[in-house]
């Protein structure tokens, strides 16, 4: 069951997922102890390579690594300049020379962690790549749901918001489906593509989605930075149509539904302020569970070994022989 990298949920087997969730349970038990550190990764180095700013995921990985006694280094990424694939490749060469054991990478380009993984012996963990995947987020979401529903098969999760740009939606829905959870999407037509997998139900309005009787309502963060292209007319309209308003919260409370959100929350957009005090909001549980999940992942991966495609990569670097023409 050893793996070098964690790049996506799509390629994870059910047994691997169950294993990680179980391990996470054990690690979480540590948190109540006075000494929260264990020596599992003593002498190992974890390098944080974040091309997109993210306080939450970054600090969660950092705490997880430190609780496993690993050394954590932050690789300084210049957020002000546009970081393209070319400069990333130079960075990878540097990192390989440093012989780091784990690389936690976040980048705006889909597929980039996979490219790094093919070129280093370090274990690469995808901490979010473009609109592709965010596997540890999915694992912590599943873990959080399993705490409430130990057997989640047949439970229903309604994911609301920007599906098009959301790596969380992709990873979490894939993982939940692997665990037998039913998943539905709801969001603006401009942000829920018509070609999402057929296994995912799609609702066009909130009321219809409620009659489906979900157990969990999962709100995605509205990415304000994408508002240079208008996907919906206004934040006010978004909140009214797709947000959890005060009226909707009352109904959610009556139905006893759980609320989740990957954070950070745009208050008054995805959620009204009152959700923060709602007893069935799992948002802080998600943050807490992020640490034990990331410990489980770091502990599970096995760095070292061969570069999977190093040979092919090296061959690509060779230039073709010159052609001599008479």
């Amino acid at each position, binding site marked *: 069951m050893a793996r070098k990298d964690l790049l996506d949920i799509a390629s994870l087997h059910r047994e691997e997922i169950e294993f990680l969730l179980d391990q996470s349970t054990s690690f979480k038990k540590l948190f109540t102890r006075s000494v929260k550190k264990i020596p599992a990764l003593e002498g190992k180095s974890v390098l944080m390579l974040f091309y997109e700013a993210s306080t939450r995921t970054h600090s969660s990985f950092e705490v997880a690594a430190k609780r496993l006694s690993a050394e954590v280094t932050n690789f300084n990424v210049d957020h002000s300049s546009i970081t393209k694939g*070319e400069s990333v490749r130079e960075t990878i060469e540097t990192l390989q020379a440093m012989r780091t054991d784990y690389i936690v990478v976040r980048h705006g380009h889909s597929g980039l962690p996979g490219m790094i993984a093919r070129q280093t012996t370090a274990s690469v963990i995808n901490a979010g790549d473009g609109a592709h995947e965010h596997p540890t987020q999915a694992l912590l979401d599943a873990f959080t749901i399993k705490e409430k529903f130990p057997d989640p098969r047949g439970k229903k999760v309604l994911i609301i918001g920007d599906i098009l740009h959301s790596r969380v939606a992709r990873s979490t829905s894939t993982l939940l489906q692997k665990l037998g959870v039913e998943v539905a999407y709801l969001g603006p037509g401009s942000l829920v593509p018509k070609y999402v997998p057929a296994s995912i139900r799609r609702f066009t309005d909130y009321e219809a989605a409620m009659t489906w009787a979900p157990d969990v309502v999962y709100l995605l963060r509205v990415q304000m930075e994408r508002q240079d292209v208008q996907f919906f007319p206004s934040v006010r309209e978004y909140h009214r149509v797709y947000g959890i308003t005060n009226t909707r919260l009352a109904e959610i409370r009556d139905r006893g539904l759980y609320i989740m959100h990957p954070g950070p929350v745009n208050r008054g957009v995805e959620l009204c302020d009152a959700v923060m005090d709602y007893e069935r909001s799992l948002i802080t549980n998600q943050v807490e569970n992020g640490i034990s999940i990331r410990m489980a992942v770091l502990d599970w991966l096995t760095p070292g070994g061969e570069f999977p495609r190093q040979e092919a990569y090296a061959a690509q670097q060779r230039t073709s022989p010159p052609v001599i023409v008479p």
Partner: protein
Amino acid sequence: MLLLQNARIATENSPVLLEGDVLIVEGKIQDIGKSLAIPEGARIIDARGRILMPGMFDAHVHFRAPGFENKETITTGSEAAINGGVTGVVMMPNTRPALDSATAIATVLENATHRSRIPVYTSGCVTKNREGKELAEIEGMRTLGVKMLTDDGDTTADPAVLLRAMQYATEFGMFFASHCEVPELAGPRALNEGVMSYRLGIKGSPACAEEIIIDRDIRLARAAGAHVHIQHVSSKLGMETIRWWKSRGDVKVTAEVAPHHLMFTDEHIGDYDTNYKMNPPLRTQADCDALLEGLKEGVFDLIATDHAPHTPFEKAQDFISAPNGITGLDTALVSLYHHFVEPGKFGWDLVVKRYSAEPRRLMGLPVAAIEVGQPADCLLFDTEAETTFTREFMKSKSQNTPFIDQTLKGRVDMVILGAEILLER
């Protein structure tokens, strides 16, 4: 003097292969027949079992010179062509500087005569520096033999500019080749919008971005009385749009399809393999099937590779950062045989017609034919042999192709142009 014995001869007119000997004297086909007498001093080539066909002609290649000689040069590009059985090409003008003036065209043609063993023709830009604003020096380019005008790589965005160019250049007997894509819809990433783009988390380019411009440019050509040639069609509805306009018969439209759009789908991109990143992007199996139908029906007049070299350094980036395009000259003929002729999807006549005769006609050139009195311009193809597309095999300076290290059926054994044997394996 060259005597090819017992060759099977492919023509554009019939799927049936004729069998016989072909005698080439001083670069001309002097005789064709059964058991020709062996003239003294003739070199005899036993062509038994092999197919003799006219040299291919690729009306859409990027040779990157001037400006990007690290990707390809006229020499390496034309050697790749010979390697794949192609004996004539038309370069696209998106070089640096762009080929938008007589001066720029003259430099390229001058280079081509010294640095290529096959004829290299070039198209010229529609607009200055391909900016879509001011008309390029159209008549000046015509005096140097330019026939095709295109801003390939981009659509001439402003329809008024293109219409004016069409009205102007048609007077000089020139025609327009259109790269069809609404940039606002397509975005910068060459990936079909659909199931795959969702899975990979990359903004896709919808097929309608292509369909709209195909229709727009044909309408403009109709209004101007111009001839428009639609380049590298990738979508089913794009093909159907062309078919519909052709059936009306009131506008001169020709169109091309690239081998990769017939053979691959967006599913092949799999794990972000940049060798499948091209523009227009690979679409779905339904599109491939429709394109093949269109090719067989003649909606597509010709096959062209859109040979687009990029250095390994550029292509070894992540999918989003890597440039669009794949090479095609080394691999086109063998891959067409492997994927279509050998499995019986179409015959050699279609290959000869669409990849040799029609592209030459489009360019107003004499058709290469294996007929008495014609200049020798032909190749020998072994249908039993195989080709492995290793880096050593490929002659293009860049080797960004999905065929890398693949073994396909068929092999180009010999390429003859005039009195010279350009290639012999």
